[in-house]
């Protein structure tokens, strides 16, 4: 009997339930899709790296918990909206003598029904979406997945069911609580209760509007000047200023807007603009808080999605595709030790029983440190600001050097000609000229290098841009010294580089990546305590791409959840406002306002309500993104990628809302 009422209720109020249902389904769908990422082909390729797998799992788990909180809040909000709409119906049940317990049962059954339906729909949709997500994944990870594979992740499914199950239980408890609190008289009179119209002094609101503008301007200028650097403690103040500015902006906006439009009689007296204006004024007055939240969520979404795609662009550019070697490793020399296996990498490799029998050529080298830093060397060509900049970027280190014989070994395996160095000549290997002009003007000026009281001429007129190893710092500065150099040198690294035979790349890659993974896992610690770091070119690139992929996924995941949340809040607010305004629309019809005008008024309201928070959020995002740009490089293609899903989801919600409001108004 009661389940029959519940089923009929859901059928009857399907229109009311539609947005609730849509939200739950989309939530489950996104939740499943992102949690199924681990079982996708492209990720499987990557999962060979234990680091990547672990951090992916951890960050997805953390994000899932966070997201389930956001979604939980959202579901409760949506559910509250439904209950509010049905107060009268619940009141009638109570008048008929139905005990509160039974009413709760009906509600529980209804939520259960909707919950199960949306969970099923969401999972179904999620399975579909995750198929296309795997295409996106492989493009982000730059992995070619030749065969299309149908991906289904039971783990992700159980996880979704568990998380959403908990959310539903919380909602049911919440309903139980709400119903037990209600008084019959309030339920029956719910529809008659008048909304308080908040009146505010127009002058104060104008002042407040100016004040909010000033706050925002101040926050913007701070953000643009200092950048959004998380390590900067002043950032907190910037954020507080921005949030307060946004809050005051919406608080004062409507009154200010009304004043402005009232001045312009042509707009004010056109059609039923008066009504639209007052409707908005009334809504924004009471809903400024949720508009603020929506605006900030949208801002977060846009910035998140944009920067994560942007990051992908940045890393794609920095990944090395034409590095000089296929694999590199080096050992940190322990000066205290007498053990050759802690000094010479050759001895170390013998100790751990590694032989170079893979199809590849290798070259050993020793790397020394000079008692001079790069800044000291280039001092004459650096401005104070540039010096500080180099220090901030960790470019102010002792210069390292390699002897010509070792360097020529590297040249040999690369298949390049050996260099000939005179007694008083050195070569510079560096990419410092990409940062500032000091190195270029140093070379152009024909400056000499003073090493331990002896002058050396720089043989090359432009620096050699190929680093001595592939797993070094992204900024490097080395000297190639003549073999006859007899000054004092401190040995810091001994290492080797490898170039694979073109015909047997895969075999060689496997040999060396196995060796380096074993080193990562500290498998040789028992044999030799020496610290050796090695990486193949593929590993090196994967590491960068993997870190980026995690950030992009999380950015997308969070961003999508945020936008769904804010759009849902907005849609529900609109629908509930529409039911509150039914009486007004009825009055409009009675005094001769046409359907066309009413629909126009609804469209205008929806447009403004959706666009105003979006516009401020876009302004926020432009400032936010430009200040992040100071940290990262900027890629305009990211705009398309980040804007497209946003526009699709947001306009979908906009249309659903517009149609919903029109329906509510028409049905009466």
């Amino acid at each position, binding site marked *: 009997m009661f389940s029959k009422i519940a089923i009929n209720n859901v059928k009857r109020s399907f229109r009311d339930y539609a947005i609730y249902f849509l939200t739950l389904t989309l939530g489950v769908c996104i939740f499943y899709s992102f949690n199924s990422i681990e079982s996708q082909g492209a990720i499987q390729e990557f999962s060979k790296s234990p680091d990547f797998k672990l951090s992916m799992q951890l960050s997805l788990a953390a994000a899932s918990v966070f997201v389930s909180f956001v979604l939980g809040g959202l579901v409760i909000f949506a559910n509250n909206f439904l209950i509010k709409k049905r107060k009268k119906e619940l009141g009638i049940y109570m008048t008929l003598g139905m005990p509160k317990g039974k009413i709760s049962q009906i509600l529980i059954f209804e939520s259960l029904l909707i919950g199960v339906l949306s969970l099923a729909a969401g999972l179904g949709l999620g399975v579909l979406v995750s198929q296309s997500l795997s295409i996106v994944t492989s493009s982000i990870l730059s992995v070619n997945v030749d065969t299309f594979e149908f991906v289904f992740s039971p783990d992700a499914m159980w996880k979704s069911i568990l998380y959403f199950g908990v959310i539903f239980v919380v909602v049911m408890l919440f309903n139980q609580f709400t119903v037990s609190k209600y008084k019959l008289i309030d339920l029956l009179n719910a529809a008659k209760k*008048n*909304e308080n*119209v908040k*009146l505010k002094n127009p002058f104060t609101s104008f002042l407040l509007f100016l004040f909010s503008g000033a706050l925002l301007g101040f926050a913007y200028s701070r953000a643009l000047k200092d950048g959004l650097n998380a390590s900067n403690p002043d950032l907190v103040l910037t954020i507080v200023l921005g949030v307060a500015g946004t809050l005051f902006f919406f608080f004062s906006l409507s009154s200010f807007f009304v004043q402005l439009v009232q001045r312009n*009689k*042509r707009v*004010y*007296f*056109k*059609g*039923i*603009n*008066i*009504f639209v204006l*007052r*409707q908005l*004024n*009334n809504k924004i007055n009471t809903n400024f808080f949720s508009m603020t939240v929506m605006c900030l969520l949208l801002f977060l979404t846009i910035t998140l999605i944009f920067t994560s795609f942007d990051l992908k662009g940045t890393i794609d550019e920095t990944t090395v595709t034409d590095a000089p070697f296929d694999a590199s490793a080096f050992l940190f020399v322990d000066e205290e030790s007498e053990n050759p296996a802690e000094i010479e990498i050759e001895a170390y490799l013998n100790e751990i029983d590694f032989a170079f029998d893979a199809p590849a050529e290798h070259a050993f080298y020793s790397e020394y440190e000079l008692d001079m830093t790069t800044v000291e060397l280039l001092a004459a060509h650096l401005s104070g600001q540039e010096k500080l900049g180099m220090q901030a970027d960790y470019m102010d280190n002792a210069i390292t050097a390699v002897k010509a014989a070792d360097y020529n070994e590297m040249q040999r395996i690369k298949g390049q000609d050996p260099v000939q160095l005179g007694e008083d000549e050195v070569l510079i290997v560096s990419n410092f000229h990409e940062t500032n002009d000091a190195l270029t003007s140093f070379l152009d000026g024909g400056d000499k290098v003073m090493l331990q009281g002896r002058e050396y001429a720089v043989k090359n007129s432009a620096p050699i841009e190929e680093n001595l190893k592939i797993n070094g710092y992204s900024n490097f500065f080395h000297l190639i010294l003549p073999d006859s150099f007899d000054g004092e040198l401190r040995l810091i690294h001994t290492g080797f580089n490898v170039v694979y035979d073109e015909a047997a790349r895969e075999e060689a890659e496997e040999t060396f990546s196995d060796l380096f993974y074993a080193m990562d896992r500290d498998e040789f610690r028992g044999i030799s305590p020496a610290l050796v770091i090695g990486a193949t070119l593929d590993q090196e690139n994967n590491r960068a791409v993997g870190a980026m992929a995690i950030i992009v996924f999380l950015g997308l995941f969070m961003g999508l959840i945020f936008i769904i949340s804010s759009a849902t809040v907005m849609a529900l607010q609109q629908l509930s406002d529409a039911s509150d305004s039914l009486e*007004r629309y*009825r*009055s*409009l019809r*009675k*005094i*001769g*306002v*046409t*359907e066309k*005008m009413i629909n126009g008024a609804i469209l205008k309201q929806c447009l403004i309500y959706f666009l105003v928070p979006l516009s401020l959020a876009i302004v926020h995002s432009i400032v936010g993104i430009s200040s992040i740009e100071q940290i990262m490089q900027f890629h305009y293609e990211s705009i398309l990628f980040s804007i497209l899903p946003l526009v699709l989801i947001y306009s979908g919600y906009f249309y659903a809302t517009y149609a919903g409001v029109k329906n509510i108004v028409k049905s009466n």
Partner: protein
Amino acid sequence: METILSVEKIEKYYGNKGKKGNITKAMDDISFQVKEGEFVGIMGPSGSGKTTLLNCISTIDHVTTGKIIINGQDVTGLKKKALETFRRDELGFIFQDFNLLDTLTAYENIALALTIQKRGETEIDSMIQKVAEKLGITEILGNYPFQLSGGQKQRVASARAIVTEPSLILADEPTGALDSKSSNMLLESFEKLNQEFGSTILMVTHDSFTASYANRILFIKDGRIFNELVRGNDTRKQFFNKIIEVVALLGGDVGNVL
């Protein structure tokens, strides 16, 4: 005097025509005319069909048969769009529950009636001021409905109804939600509108006192015109007594007594 409203043999059925005995006759062969400058009252007990009659005249509802001619135009044959325009331009409405928009000030409520007629922004203000003066609401134009008394609200609603200078003003139980003092003030405004400005008013009421302000009263019972009273040169008091007599007759079913 020109005839503003001419109702010719209208009938209105509710219910399924296909099944026998399921039909309710809300109006049965009603005909009457209203001339320009008249103030006509329509009285009748609950369920007599007076609201249906008003709804049909105001083009909100459709008649089953018959013609309703307002200002020379047969509204029963108009299409939906033409109806909307007609209602907007030719009719003014005053409702029992005022139907003022609670979010708009009194001024804006009146202005809305003009803006939906697409009037120029320059004439709107002067038209509002003029009508506000007529009804004595100039002082309260800036107030919201919740700051007004019932009588003031109804006068604002009346101002909204007449500001567009419609050919016919339709009032549905205008004093239904008012106390006697506010009723008096409102009805005096109606009288003034009718006598000084020549507005044509058709008012539905079941209150004899309210009806006594009209020039002529049509009594309706069970969907038919039952009686007609013309005030002529009577004082309001005399007219009121005559109304009471008819109402007594209407209320008690004569057939039962006999």
